[in-house]
């Protein structure tokens, strides 16, 4: 099942249960998967703002000030850098209850190319005080997270890969918005990963195990505030760290982990987009040109271990 279908299905339940849950769109309901909800909710709980994301963000804040639980959605570049000031002031500084859903993060924008490819959304938003940044990794986690996000009062950016993702969590998974999840324990290297590359990191860890390198794989679904306790405990145990993300190596998960470990004298290597813009292509091509491949994760993991 596609991530956007799960997202829409969860929103439907939340909207049915509470008429104060409202969704604003900026002409991308089809891409976001919520167009099917319109028959039931349009004009009462769903509103299309047209191609005007800044207005959408501030309207969501206005609705929040009136007691509504606002959700807004667009592609990641337009849900982050385009409305950065509205997120900072109308939403975060004003302490409003708005969930900002950005779909198609990083290279997953595929055929929309460089203009729509947000290599920087986490970096742009991470320095806005009090904003929470969450990136779901599979359908199980997203399903568990949606009601938690809806109930959490505050500003949250949800970085949503919209197509199908392989499950990494079991059905009985217990979600904690502020707690990272250890997917695999290990002793030689800690791999911190978020979003669509999590399965690739697990595959890399399996390959490394065959070569005698024991990797601990931790899914950092909430990049801000980062779960310092879990990150520190694992890094101190393995004494070598690799971060893996579908984002510029500047400003994202890699930076967040580095900031957490700055005083620890533990080597950290990062797999991510090397400070470059995107381009058109399908995922296998884009992974290749940006270095987001299982092979590169394996290679860089070995480099990290060698630095011990």
């Amino acid at each position: 099942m596609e991530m956007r279908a799960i997202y829409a299905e969860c929103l439907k339940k939340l909207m049915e249960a509470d008429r104060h849950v409202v969704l604003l769109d900026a002409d991308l309901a089809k891409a976001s998967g919520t167009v099917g909800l319109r028959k039931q909710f349009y004009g009462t709980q769903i509103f299309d703002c047209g191609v005007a994301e800044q207005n959408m963000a501030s309207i969501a804040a206005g609705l929040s000030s009136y007691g509504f639980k606002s959700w807004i959605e667009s592609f990641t570049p337009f849900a982050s850098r385009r409305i950065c000031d509205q997120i900072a002031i109308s939403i975060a500084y004003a302490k409003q209850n708005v969930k900002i859903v950005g779909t198609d993060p990083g290279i997953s924008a595929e055929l929309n190319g460089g203009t729509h490819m947000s290599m920087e959304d986490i970096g742009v938003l991470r320095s806005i005080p009090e904003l929470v940044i969450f990136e779901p990794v599979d359908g199980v986690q997203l399903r568990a997270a949606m009601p938690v996000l809806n109930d959490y009062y505050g500003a949250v950016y949800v970085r949503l890969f919209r197509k199908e993702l392989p499950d990494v969590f079991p059905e009985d998974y217990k979600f904690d918005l502020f707690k990272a999840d250890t997917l695999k324990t290990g002793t030689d290297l800690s791999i911190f990963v978020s979003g669509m590359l999590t399965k690739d990191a697990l595959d890399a860890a399996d390959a490394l195990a065959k070569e005698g390198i024991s990797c601990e794989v931790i899914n950092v679904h909430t990049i801000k505030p980062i779960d310092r306790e879990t990150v520190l405990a694992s890094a101190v145990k393995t004494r070598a760290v690799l971060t893996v993300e579908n984002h510029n190596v500047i400003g994202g998960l890699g930076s967040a982990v580095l900031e957490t470990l700055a005083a620890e004298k533990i080597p950290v290597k990062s797999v991510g987009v090397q400070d470059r813009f995107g381009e058109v292509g399908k995922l296998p091509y884009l992974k290749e040109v940006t270095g987001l491949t299982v092979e590169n994760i394996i290679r860089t993991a070995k480099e990290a271990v060698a630095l011990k």
Partner: protein
Amino acid sequence: MLFPLTTSIYEDKIQLVNNSNQIKENTELDKNLREIAKDIRCDVLTCIGHLGVGHIGGCLSVAELLTVLYFEAMNTDPKDPKKPGRDRFICSKGHAGPAVYATLANRGYFDKKELLTLNQGGTNLPSHCDMNRTVGIDMTTGSLGQGFSCAVGVALGSKLEGDGATIYTLIGDGETQEGQIWEAAMFAASKKLDNLIAFTDYNKLQIDGTVEEVNGIAPLDEKWRAFGWNVIDVEDGNDIDEVSVAVKHAKLGIGSGRPTMVILNTKKGCGVKWIEELGAGNHNTNVTAEQAEAAIRELRGEA
């Protein structure tokens, strides 16, 4: 009926003559309102003079509007500032915060003495409006354009709740240059938010010069009309009678299916000669305590 469901009634400028009955009925109140506007101006001068600097020009230009809203038009209760279904005022030109605070204090939301803390470290009265700090402030504003969109969101919220509140909002003429204003204008008309009454403080000046020199917005009335709004043009936005009548007219637009824009032709720095004469320079300027005291004497007719 005074107001049909079309905008034709708004085409002409407000003719006070046509409303002489209304004005006569309110003579007593109008007189009070005039005094209140003067008090608000004096309090703005006092608190900015105490601090030594501030957005004096755009505070003095909106004293009449704030007086009419808080002392005549709006259904609010200073004793119950969060009362559900209350009318709301969102000052999108957030730098007029000091004028709003002076109004709230005069209306009894908080002690007037608090005005002297304006913009001091730790104050509840920051230069730009902050809903999380100040009793009676319903929206955080200051990044221009955003408060107007927020007000549109609030108007939508009130419609969804069906609570019958009227949402008032104020934008600056310089602020009108923000693209977000027009995004919100389209949305409000498209969603028929006729519970939204907006005002433009059309004082024709912004920080870098006259609005027309910097980036012209005229003809403002035609722009708003073209965006699907009722438009009321007030010849003198610093005349309490004209503003009072304009707000009454604007309220009659509720039910028209269109939001309403009241264009207030105002004078930046209105009421204090030397501040008026600074022109564009009065946007944010130094005001000493002595200058403030002299200005207050001028306003009180004691100079």
